[in-house]
């Protein structure tokens, strides 16, 4: 139909086309159009595509790049032989201030990312030019813990999904940025918030709450992607009558924390979600919450359909040092073993059998002084004298941990797990602090220990089979950058001084770097358009994209 015919129809000068004709054409296009175009249809990200993301390395469709959390790209156009010639392709200024922790998604040429204060935007991933921009209206009295940050989006169907600092979960139209649904998951006034990039599994949007600094009762939620209806909630602190409730003293479970603020992983074969949890509340004062405090600082294996707990493993029992176990649990299959590996904030690298949660190994990968023995399962046990005191004393790692939320990578080509780590010790001092709804609930103070200076930052390569550190690169100072590995034999990471660096995956020798002018607090990712590979990372208040000089 021509435009003229259309307007004549609207004006009533021509009879209307039968409504049946349009759908049949649309149906025809969806059935055959994609085949004819030999490329995926814009925006339609099916669960099947997410499961088989390795088949489309040009796209980066989840926070960690795939369901296994490896943050590995199958692209190899940029490789150890030509990385030295990389150039900046474009920069997108978000206009936000503070720490930019987002990992962008790229699907079929469009980049989707977030920034501070719950901004979301879609960019032409070839040029960096914005297509739409959205910002959630936040109340003035939100109380995020650690910066007004957001780590990214999930994409499913024709929508992208974000959690907000006032504890909303929002679905946006991927084509326009319009709000499709917007629900309130919890009360922000009691310290609940979302900073995590959600995970799309089947038709569910899985998201974990932040608020371990406010004494929330942590939970992981799953919402119907179409309607926003809540399908399940798993409370990370068991209520009365539930197993694990006995690990809390008195009513301490009600304000027990155990938030779930980093994105988990998913194993389609067993239909299990692996989601890590954070510190018990108050974070640095154990008095009043005697017991192991389940399921704080644990890895949870949940049935994706029901949210039912299959197994758990607690890394740090009765934590008093704010060592959230919220690092990405990376699924690794080796020698017919189905493993999950995590470089934990407490300074140990753990490998578990993911079919049953049994610990296989726990090896220190940074400076630690809190444990010198292991229990019968091989789990490091805290020394009594590691507990914070009123006067304060030094414990390593510090509260920021040997690593933190910054995502690691596993490269199956080298068989190594690459993670950013820091050697820093803090003085931990406890302070009695009553719970008050919506108020900070640390029960403590901690600050860098002068006597333990200088603080060192590293990129380390760990062999998961042995826990051995095979090689390391020392940064000028500790960094908050995540790590990406690619089929090109490269590892990418950033630093606190603003450099983005390409390393040889075999030696961790820097092959190329670019000064971005802002510290890195995010993980890198890779994508391709029209056969050209790009690597992107957030730094300062902008998103940077690099490629070869073509």
């Amino acid at each position, binding site marked *: 139909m021509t435009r003229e015919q259309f307007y004549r129809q609207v004006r009533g000068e021509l009879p209307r086309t039968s409504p049946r004709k349009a759908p049949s054409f649309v149906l025809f296009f969806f059935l055959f159009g994609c085949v004819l175009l030999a490329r995926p249809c814009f925006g339609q990200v099916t669960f099947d595509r997410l499961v088989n993301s390795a088949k489309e390395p040009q796209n980066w469709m989840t926070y960690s790049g795939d369901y296994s959390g490896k943050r590995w790209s199958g692209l190899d156009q940029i490789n150890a032989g030509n990385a030295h010639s990389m150039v900046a392709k474009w920069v997108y200024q978000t206009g936000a201030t503070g720490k930019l922790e987002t990992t962008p998604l790229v699907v079929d040429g469009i980049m989707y990312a977030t920034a501070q204060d719950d901004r979301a935007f879609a960019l032409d991933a070839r040029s960096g030019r914005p297509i739409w921009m959205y910002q959630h209206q936040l109340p003035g009295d939100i*109380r995020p813990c650690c910066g007004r940050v957001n780590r990214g989006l999930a994409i499913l169907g024709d929508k992208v999904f974000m959690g907000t600092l006032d504890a909303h979960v929002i679905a946006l139209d991927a084509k326009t940025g319009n709000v499709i649904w917007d629900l309130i998951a919890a009360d922000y006034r009691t310290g609940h918030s979302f900073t995590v990039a959600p995970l799309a599994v089947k038709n569910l949007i899985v998201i974990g709450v932040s608020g371990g600094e406010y004494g929330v009762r942590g939970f992981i939620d799953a919402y119907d992607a179409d309607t926003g209806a809540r399908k399940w909630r798993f409370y990370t602190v068991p209520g009365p009558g539930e197993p694990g409730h006995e690990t809390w003293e008195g009513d301490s479970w009600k304000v027990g924390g155990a938030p779930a603020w980093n994105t988990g992983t998913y194993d389609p074969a067993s239909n299990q979600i692996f989601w890590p949890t954070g510190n018990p509340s108050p974070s640095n004062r154990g008095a009043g919450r005697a017991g192991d405090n389940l399921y704080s600082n644990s890895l949870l294996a949940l049935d994706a359909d029901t949210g039912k707990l299959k197994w758990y493993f607690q890394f740090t029992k009765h934590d008093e040092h704010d060592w959230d176990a919220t690092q990405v649990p990376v699924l690794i299959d080796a020698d017919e073993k189905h493993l999950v590996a995590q470089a934990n904030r407490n300074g140990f690298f753990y490998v578990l059998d993911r079919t049953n949660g049994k610990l296989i190994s726990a090896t220190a990968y940074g400076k630690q002084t809190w444990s010198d023995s292991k229990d019968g399962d091989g789990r490091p046990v805290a020394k009594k004298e590691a507990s914070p005191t009123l006067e304060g004393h030094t414990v390593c790692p510090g509260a920021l941990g040997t690593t933190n939320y910054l995502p690691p990578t596993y490269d199956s080509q080298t068989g190594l797990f690459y993670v950013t780590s820091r050697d820093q010790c803090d003085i931990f001092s406890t302070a009695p602090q009553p719970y008050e709804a919506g108020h900070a609930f640390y029960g403590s103070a901690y600050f860098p220990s002068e006597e333990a200076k200088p603080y060192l930052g590293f990129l380390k390569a760990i062999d998961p089979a042995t826990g051995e550190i095979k090689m390391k690169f020392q940064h000028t100072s500790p960094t908050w950058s995540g790590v990406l590995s690619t089929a090109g034999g490269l590892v990418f990471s950033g630093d606190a001084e603003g450099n983005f660096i390409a390393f040889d995956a075999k030696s961790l020798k820097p092959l190329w770097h670019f000064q971005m002018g802002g510290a890195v607090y995010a993980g890198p990712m890779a994508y391709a358009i029209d056969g050209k590979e790009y690597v992107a990372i957030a730094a300062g208040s902008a998103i940077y994209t690099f490629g070869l000089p073509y």
Partner: protein
Amino acid sequence: MRLLAAVCSLAVAFIGEAHSQNPYAGNVKAAKAGEYEFRINCALCHGLGAHGGGRGPDLTRAQKKHTHNDAEMFQVISNGIPGTAMPANGTNGQGVGMTDEEIWQIITYIRSQEVKAAAKPLGDPRRGKTLFYGDANCSLCHMINGRGGRVGPDLSAVSGSRTREALIDSVRNPSRRLAWGLTESTKEFPQEYETVTAVTAEGKEIKGVTLNEDSFTVQVMDTNENLHLLEKDKLRSFQKSRESAMPKYGTDLLSDKDLEDIVAFLAGAGAK
């Protein structure tokens, strides 16, 4: 329009009024609550007991560099201090956003910790000035109000952020806590005055302090105040040390009385 302007100015006046008076001034209970809030929100940089030394200045000094009264302190805690590492309330990496009530409690606590300055300075500032620019050789490296050297930190305002004890310790044991230089907006730690020895490809040795550094470059000021902008991979050798470039002033070099006079001079300089 005029009415609107009047309403606006009234509103501004009202908001201003709300944050000009500490409702808890002198309240012991509020000071105790403030102590815990301080530990949670401020101690990371300003240290336990507000004695400073971690990253931020000592706040037990009655004389503050950026604030003169409770209302100004409220503004500084709420909005941060541009050009410094002091963040606006709720925007720092570790702490949590505080309510107005909590900020006032913290101010009440800080006031309760302040040490009143001695009625008379312990040292003689005039003699201290003579020493600073003369026999003690401080001004070879340090500058006050535009006069002096560039190799070490500018000391014009140091008395507003460091206690007498911290200043004395810095002179007696300069390597114990290296002074801070540049603070970049989103970087976690400020640059420290580390000592650098670099040898260029041509074999020229450069000794000085780091103004800034990353994994690939270093910006050095040598002891003759020459700036060297170096690429590390082009150097024959590059060594860094946490042994301060400043000599350790024992009592043989500088008596306790001389040092007290210099500290008195620094305190006076900061007051300007």
